[in-house]
C-alpha cells in the first residue's frame, strides 16, 4: 500500500515543475504545458484523496470532470495563442509587454 504522502510528494513535484515551466519558458505553448502539469498535480491529489472519501469514488469522478475541463481550456488557450501569434507574429511572452504603462 503506497502511503498518501508519496502521492502528495509527486503531486507537489509536478506542481513545482509546472510552475517553473510557466514562469521561465519563452514559448507560450510550453507555458501551456506547464499549466497542464500543475492541473494534473491537482487532479492527482483528487485521485489520491478519493481513498478517504465518504462517498465512493467522488474524487475520481471529480478528476475525470477536471480532465474534461482541462481539455476544453486547452482548446480555448490554443486558440488564444494562435490569435496572439497572428497579431504579434511571436508567441514569446517576454516580447508581448503591452500591458506596461
Amino acid at each position, binding site marked *: 500500500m503506497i502511503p498518501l504522502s508519496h502521492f502528495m510528494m509527486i503531486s507537489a513535484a509536478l506542481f513545482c515543475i509546472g510552475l517553473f515551466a510557466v514562469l521561465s519558458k519563452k514559448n507560450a505553448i510550453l507555458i501551456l504545458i506547464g499549466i497542464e502539469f500543475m492541473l494534473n498535480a491537482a487532479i492527482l491529489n483528487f485521485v489520491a484523496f478519493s481513498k478517504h472519501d465518504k462517498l465512493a469514488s467522488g474524487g475520481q469522478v471529480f478528476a475525470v470532470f477536471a480532465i474534461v475541463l482541462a481539455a476544453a481550456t486547452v482548446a480555448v488557450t490554443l486558440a488564444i495563442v494562435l490569435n496572439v501569434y497572428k497579431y504579434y507574429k511571436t508567441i514569446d511572452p517576454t516580447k*508581448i509587454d503591452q*500591458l506596461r504603462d
Partner: protein
Amino acid sequence: MDTLTQGNLSLLAVIAAILPLFTFLWIVLVPGKEGRGASFAIFNISLSLLISAFLFIKVWNTETIHEQIPWFSIGSTVFKAGILLNNLSVLMLLLVSAISLLVHIYSTRYMQGDPYLHRYWAYLGLFCFSMLGLVITDNLLLLYMFWELVGFSSYLLIGFWFTKDTATQASKKAFIMNRLGDLGFLTGIMILFSQFGTLDIHALFAQGGLVFESIIEGGLWKSSGNVMPEYWLTIAGLAFFFGATAKSAQFPLHTWLPDAMEGPTSVSSLIHAATMVAAGVFLLARIYPVFDATVLTVIASVGAFTAFMAATIALTQNDIKRILAFSTVSQLGFMMIAMGVGAYAPGIFHLVTHAFFKCLLFLAAGAVIHEMAHLKEKTAVDFDHQDIQNMGGLRKSMPLTFFTMLIASLALSGIPFTSGFLSKDAILIQSFEWAHDKSGLAKLIPYAALFTSLLTAFYISRLIFKVFFGEFKLSSLLKAEFKVHEAPAAMKYVLLVLAVFCLFFAFSSNPFNYESSWIVKGLVITSDSPLSGIATASSHISHVLIPVVINILSLFVIVLAYAWYVRSKQAPDFSKNFLFRFSQKQWYFNEVYQKGPVNSITNASRFTYIFDKAIIDGFVNSLGKVGILLSSIIHWIDRYIVDGLVNGIASMAKTIGNFARHFQTGRLQHYMITMVLVVLTFFIIKIFFQAI
C-alpha cells in the same frame, strides 16, 4: 392764418432757438477741414432771424403764447417745460438773433485766417442757442439751465485765444463770477418754489398770476398754498438780483466784464450788446412782479452806483475796448436804475437801443483794431494796437467807420435824433419822478444818473477825438505802401446796418418823446404789482426840462473834450492826481478782490492742499504700508506652508506612483511571479503566526 395755432408758433420758436445748436453740433461732431462752418453758421442764424421776425409780427401786441409739455415729475409735482412768447420774449428773440446775425457776418472777415475758426463758429452757435433758449423758455429751472449755458459758452468764447494767458485768466474770472451769481439765482428759485410750488413763469408772474395773488399781511407773505415770513420775499428778490448782477456785470460782481475783452472783439460785441449782459436785465424783467419796494430800491441804488463808478473808470482808460467795456457796465447800471425805479418799459427799451449802439461801437472799434493790427504786422514794430494813445486822425483813412462810430457815440451820449436819447431820457425822467416822493439818499439816484450821463458824454467824446481826430500818432511808421484803410466790405456793411438802428426812426416816430416809441407802448405794465407799490404817475414838466438840461450839459462836456483833445496840443495832465489814479486803477476793485477773497481762498486751498498731502495722504500711505507688510507675511505663509502641504502630498503620491510603476513591466510571467510570491508570503505568514 388760422392754420398757425399756438402750438405751431411755439414749435417755430423752438426751431429758431435750436438752429444755432445745429451749427455747434455739426461742427463738433462732423469732422472736416479747419475753419469750416462759416456759411452753415450764417445760414442757421439767418433762418433763426427770419423765424424770429415772423414770430415777432405774429405775437407783438396780440396775444401771449404759452405752450407746455410735461417734463418730469417728482412725487405728485409735475414739472412742465414749455415756451412762453409775450411781447418781452419776442422782442428779445428778434434782438438776439438780429445782433447775432450781424456779428456772424462781421466775424467772417474779422476772424479770417484764425487757425481755430471752426471752433469759433461752434462756440458762437452754442452761445446764440443758449441765449435764444433763455428768452423763450417758460420755466425758471430751464431758464436757469440756459443761464448756465450762457455762462459756459461765454467762458469758451472769452478764452477762445487760449494760448494767451490773460485770455484764459479772464475766461476763468468770468466763469467764477458768474457762478457766484448763479448761487443767488438758484436761491431765488428755491424760495419761489417753496412758496408757490411751481416754477412756471407764466403761472407765477402773468397778470393775476400767483405772485399777484399773494399778499403781505401782518408781516407774513401769504399765497394760496403757503405762508412764510415777509422777509423771505425780500430775500428772494435780492437773490434773483444777485444772480442778475453777475450776468449784467453790476457792482460788486462787475470785474469780469472788462477782463472779458481778452476775447475776440466780435465776441465782446455779442456779449455786450445782446446776449450775455442782457440776460441779467431780461431776468429782472421776466420776474419783475416778485420784487418788493426794498429790493427795487436796492436795485436802483446798485445800478446808480455801478453806472457812476464805471463811468468814472472809463474816463481814464486807454485801451479802446476797455473804455467801451466800462461804458457797458455803466449803461447796464442805467438799465438797473430803470428796473429799480419801476421804469420797466424804458429799461427794456434802453436794453434794445443799447444793444444796437454798443454792438456798433464794438464792431467799429474792432475795425480800428483790425487795421492797427495789420499795421503792426506789416511794419513789425511792437506797439499796443488797442491803445488809443497810438491812434489819431483815423477819420480820413476810415471815413465810414468814423461816421458810424460817431452816430453810435451820439446815441450813447443821448444826443437828440438818436435812439439813445429816447431811452436814456426815459430812464432819467422816470427816475426823477420816482425820487420825487422819496426822501433821503434815494433822491441822489436820479442825480447820480444825470451826472453819469455827463461823464458818458465826456469819455466817449474823448475816445472819438483821440482815435479819429488830430494827427496819427504813429505816422512815422506809415510809408507809401502801408496805409491804414477802410475795413473790408463784410464789416463795413454791418456797421452801416447797425448805424441805421442807432437813429430814432427805428424806434419812434417822434424823436423827442419816448412815450411814442412802440417798444415802450408794447411793454408798459397795465396794472401794477401789489408787492412793489409803484404807481405810474407822470408830471409832464420834467419831460421837457430834463432832456433840455441834460443835452445842454452834454454839449458843453463834448465841447470841453474837443478843446482838450483836439484843439490844444497837450491835454491837461491829471496823472499826478489821486482821483485820476483811482479811476485808472478801476477803483482798485481787482486789487481788493485779489487781496481779500481771492488770496484768502487761495491760501485756504493751499493750506488744505498741504493738509491733504501731509496728513490725509500720510495716513493713507501708512495704512498702505501696513497692508503691504501684512500681505508679505501672508504671502510667505501661503508660499511655504499651504503650498508646501499641497505640494508635499502631491510629491508623496508621485513617489509612490514611481515606486509602483516598476512592477508594471507588462510581462505576463513577471505578474505571475509576483502573484505566486504574494500567495506564498501569505501562506508563510499564516503558518508562521499559527506556529507562534
